[in-house]
């Protein structure tokens, strides 16, 4: 795409700037041929305007010979050749114009002094052509950098969207159907408990809505959310679902991405405990290890149960979000064997126990 012709609003300024070039050329004719301004203008204005359009062709050599290290010789050669060629065509245009002007008598003086200004016009034509070529290079470079920036912005927007999608994918709607079944059952047998259950479900949903837009939240809040989730699931599974917690003291204020543990606990129940007839315990541990917060969710599973293909949405989302916020400093490790499934997450701590404060918080 031609950087001047293809863009609306660029041809005007170019032609405007070209006016001064034409004035300059007329001045050169006036000096070289020692004639008046009107005479010089009559000779040079129309060819000058035509030359303005001719110089736009500099785009093509610019495109085919980009300014890259190692290819400067090639660029220079093609432009010198193009400049000479354009210059000669330019002279031909002037010449033709002069022939057309011959009948006009008051221009006789200029016609006589052709030999004095033609060489000046050739040199000026070549120089102007080279300037226009430089302008093209500038515009092409500008467009490329804009394009790169657009790509970058698009990529960022896509990443943000993917992150959001991952977040939204986390809450399995079937969780709600099952929770409502529990509430429905409790209404008949234990209305007080039913009411409590409604409160817990509402609090859990509110937590999710409130926290999932955050960039980071205190570990304490994530643990509260997980507790609510577990309370709801324990109503469903009864004694089949046991919970073991081992949370090192003093970690409550450590900041973690929201919904970091909840999907892991959800998986532990969905693919572990609920697939075992007698159930089992979901274990949750958190401790500080040097500059890292180490979290672990582990649970028994049935190695002979239904086979699962690939990594679940929840785990993939935790992985992706940790990588987006912390890069390679964070890690997610999965270990399955001997009927036990463990997910270990490492989140880098700032020296004061905070997430990197340089990160923007949305």
């Amino acid at each position, binding site marked *: 795409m031609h950087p001047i012709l293809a863009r609306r609003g660029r041809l005007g300024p170019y032609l405007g700037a070209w006016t001064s070039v034409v004035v300059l050329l007329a001045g050169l004719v006036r000096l070289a041929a020692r004639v008046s301004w009107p005479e010089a203008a009559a000779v040079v204005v129309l060819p000058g305007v035509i030359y303005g359009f001719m110089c736009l062709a500099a785009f093509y050599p610019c495109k085919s010979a980009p300014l890259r290290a190692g290819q400067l010789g090639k660029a220079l050669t093609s432009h010198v050749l193009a400049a000479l060629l354009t210059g000669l065509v330019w002279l031909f245009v002037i010449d033709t114009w002069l022939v057309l002007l011959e009948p006009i008598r008051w221009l006789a003086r200029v016609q006589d002094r052709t030999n004095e200004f033609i060489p000046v016009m050739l040199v000026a034509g070549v120089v102007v052509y080279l300037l226009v070529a430089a302008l093209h290079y500038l515009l092409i470079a500008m467009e490329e950098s804009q394009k790169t920036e657009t790509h970058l912005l698009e990529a960022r927007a896509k990443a943000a969207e993917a992150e959001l999608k991952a977040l939204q994918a986390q809450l399995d709607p079937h969780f709600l159907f*099952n929770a409502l*079944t*529990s509430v429905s059952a409790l209404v008949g*047998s234990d209305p007080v408990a039913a009411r409590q259950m409604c409160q817990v479900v509402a609090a859990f949903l509110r937590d999710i809505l409130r926290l999932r837009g955050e960039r980071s939240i205190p570990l304490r809040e994530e643990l509260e959310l997980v507790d609510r989730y577990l309370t709801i699931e324990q*109503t469903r599974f009864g004694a089949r679902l046991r919970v073991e917690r081992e949370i090192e003291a003093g970690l409550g204020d450590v900041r973690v991405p929201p919904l970091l543990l909840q999907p892991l606990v959800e998986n532990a129940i969905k693919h572990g405990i609920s697939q075992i*007839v007698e159930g089992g315990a979901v274990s949750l541990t958190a401790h500080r290890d040097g500059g890292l917060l180490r979290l672990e969710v582990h649970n028994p599973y049935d190695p002979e149960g*239904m086979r699962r293909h690939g990594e679940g949405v929840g785990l993939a989302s935790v992985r992706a979000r940790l990588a987006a916020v912390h890069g390679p400093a964070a890690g997610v490790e999965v270990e399955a064997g001997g009927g036990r499934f463990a997910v270990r997450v490492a989140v880098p701590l700032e020296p004061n126990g905070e997430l990197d404060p340089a990160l923007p918080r949305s």
Partner: protein
Amino acid sequence: MSRLRVAIVDDEAPARALLREYLGAEPEVELVAECANGFEAVRAVEELRPDLLLLDVQMPRLSGFDVLGLVERDVAVVFVTAYDAYAVRAFDVQAVDYLLKPVAPERLRQALARARQRLGQPPRVAAAALQAAATPHAAPLSRLVVRDGGQVEVVPLDAIDVIEAQDDCVVVRTRGRKLRKASTLNDLAAQLDPGRFVRVHRCFLLNVARLARLELYARDSRLAVLADGSKIPVSRAGYARLRSVLPAT
């Protein structure tokens, strides 16, 4: 009208409680069993002969569909599940109805009425046909569910040596034991990964991973020697099939 004998099968206690409560309000309905998993359900169907199962789909080890594949008695089925994704399969196994959790009492009443209507008619489908339909046609099986008398076992494919055709069933040889399963070798071969289980003989389906070596004992006749030393015959066509899945030597 005779009383409708119903069994509830769900691994979640509140879900069972809800159905129990609803059924309690129904006249002419007798709750004969509450089963917390598929194993209990299979036993209950044999021992208590309910007319109707209110059956959850997602349960540990044995799904609702596995249960249907194992019962040899005609029993009407109403699926009760939080997932609407199983409705098509439920239709395949001639389920009377498909209820979504949380269940509304009037929906359950409707399902019970349909079950009564269905039970009043002579059974149209034999248990065996239902079993065939209860097995999924899409993805290859990942394990076999086998019932031997009252005992239900889930056998991982890795643990199977050979499946052998018998008169009216197949025998699954696994971990030194022989388990009978009501099925045909053709049906099983169609549901198992052909790269792992090869029909080496009209009567034998071999787990390729168990093959130790092949012995030639007559022209065109070979014996497959298994890792545990046992031998099974390999026909000429079976040998060709085996060659096509084994890495070239």
